[in-house]
């Protein structure tokens, strides 16, 4: 008799468990996945995603038919009159108001403070390298190389500077698509040191950064 009661008890327990499991699975009580936190997207037009260089060279502006008025010196200057440079009492160059966009910062200790180190004082639309050959504005890389020889050598071999297009630029078909950016595409010739910039946002790790500083509803 005891055996029968025991058996019945076991069966009833099993039955209750079965019913519980049916209900649980059917209504998906413990299978709910917690929603994934939506991370913000980087703006599609953001500067971060653009492959443009920091600056535009004269050659770029000509190619894009951009605004090159600033390179036409003789709209303001007089062709026959030589422009004299002015210095303050500390022997620092006084940049005239018309050229206030020019920040003199080429070389250390303010030693490179003569416009005519690079510009031709007899023809302002030309550049003046150390060897005396006249250069146009779109040949500025040769001007830079007249002082920065090793850097020009590295630039020519491709190890300094930005390249763009095809990695195998020996092949004739690839040549038109291969671009070697000029010095002035990245460096401001008047202040060549690379400017500091805002970095892109840091990574959002699964565990390390649980609370990012941005709200979650910026998904578009």
């Amino acid at each position, binding site marked *: 008799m005891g055996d029968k009661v025991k058996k019945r008890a076991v*069966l009833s327990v099993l039955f209750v468990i079965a019913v519980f499991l049916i209900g649980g699975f059917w209504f998906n009580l413990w299978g709910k996945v917690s929603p994934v936190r939506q991370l913000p997207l980087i703006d599609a037009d953001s500067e*971060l995603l653009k*492959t443009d260089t920091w600056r535009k060279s004269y050659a770029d502006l000509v190619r894009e038919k951009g605004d090159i008025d600033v390179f036409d010196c003789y709209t303001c200057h007089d062709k026959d009159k030589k422009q004299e440079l002015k210095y303050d009492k500390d022997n620092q160059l006084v940049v005239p108001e018309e050229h206030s966009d020019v920040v003199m910062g080429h070389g250390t200790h303010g030693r490179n403070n003569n416009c005519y180190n690079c510009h031709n004082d007899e023809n302002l639309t030309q550049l003046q390298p150390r060897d005396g050959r006249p250069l146009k504005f779109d040949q500025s890389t040769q001007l830079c190389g007249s002082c920065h020889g090793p850097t020009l050598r590295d630039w020519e071999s491709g*190890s300094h500077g930005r390249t*763009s297009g095809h990695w195998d630029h020996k092949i004739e078909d690839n040549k038109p698509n291969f671009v070697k950016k000029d010095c002035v595409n990245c460096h401001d010739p008047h202040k060549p040191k*690379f400017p500091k*910039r805002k*970095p892109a946002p840091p990574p959002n790790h699964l565990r390390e950064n649980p609370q990012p500083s941005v709200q979650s509803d910026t998904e578009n």
Partner: protein
Amino acid sequence: MDSRSTTNSAEPLALSRRSFLRSSALFGAGAVALAASLKPLLSLKDGPSMEQFLQKYYKELTPEEMQKVLERISREVEKEYGKRPHLRDLKPMDGVDFAYFLNLSRCVGCRKCVHACVKENNQSRSPEIQYIRVLKMPHGTFDVEKSEHNYNPDLVPEKGYFYMPVQCQQCKNPPCVKVCPVHATWQEPDGITVIDYDWCIGCRYCMAACPYGARHFNFTKPGIPADRLNTEMSYLGNRPRKKGVTEKCHFCVQRTRDGLYPACVEVCPAGARKFGNVLDHESEVYKILTTKRVFIQLKEELGTNPRFFYYFDV
């Protein structure tokens, strides 16, 4: 024999009506419970299609079969994102061994490469998967334990630090390939270690084996907004991954095997990244290798022999 057959024939009589009902009730309840537990499978959406399930190993596919596979994936991508991709299976070129050089004197730590890579390679935006991790390192050490990757100052570079972006080093002796139990990842003749996302079983052994943390796992279905999808795709490269597979940098095979620079090289504002064919003596990477002086293969002592070099210049 005789006695056993007698007991067998007598057994049905031992089954009373009550015990029959009881056991059928229990059996029925068990069957319903099983059906209920399998019910979520009916609503499973990201499971493989029969075609994908029966697909052969990548290296055994004939060109015609590959064409069918590409067609299937294009169809799936179009259904999912509403855009028809230009999907190809680009093969390695002859006489090409890729090398990557990163100039640590030039890198400013702006992380533009990270986001250009995400855009090019259809990485998951949410949750986030990024192939490149930029480490901020104090001057005078190469100990990655001292690095910081969550840096977010107003302006970079910061004084006293240099920046070291780390991504897949495309090792010549890749530990990740050795541990893969199903050969879903392998090294191609041009040096790129690739993954077949349709063959990966998601065991993550490769992630444990990689000393550079270069491999990433899709814990969920990748969250890529349809308008951000890059439709220029390659089978072993940037086609959208599924849940439960690993992925990593593949030197943008969809670009580099088409002759283009990788996306990170194209975007670097400092010109710190150099890429090319090291067997070509006219290439910039060959010139760097032969004329520049200081090279670092990250964690060189592990013998992985990376194709990714760090160097300094003046």
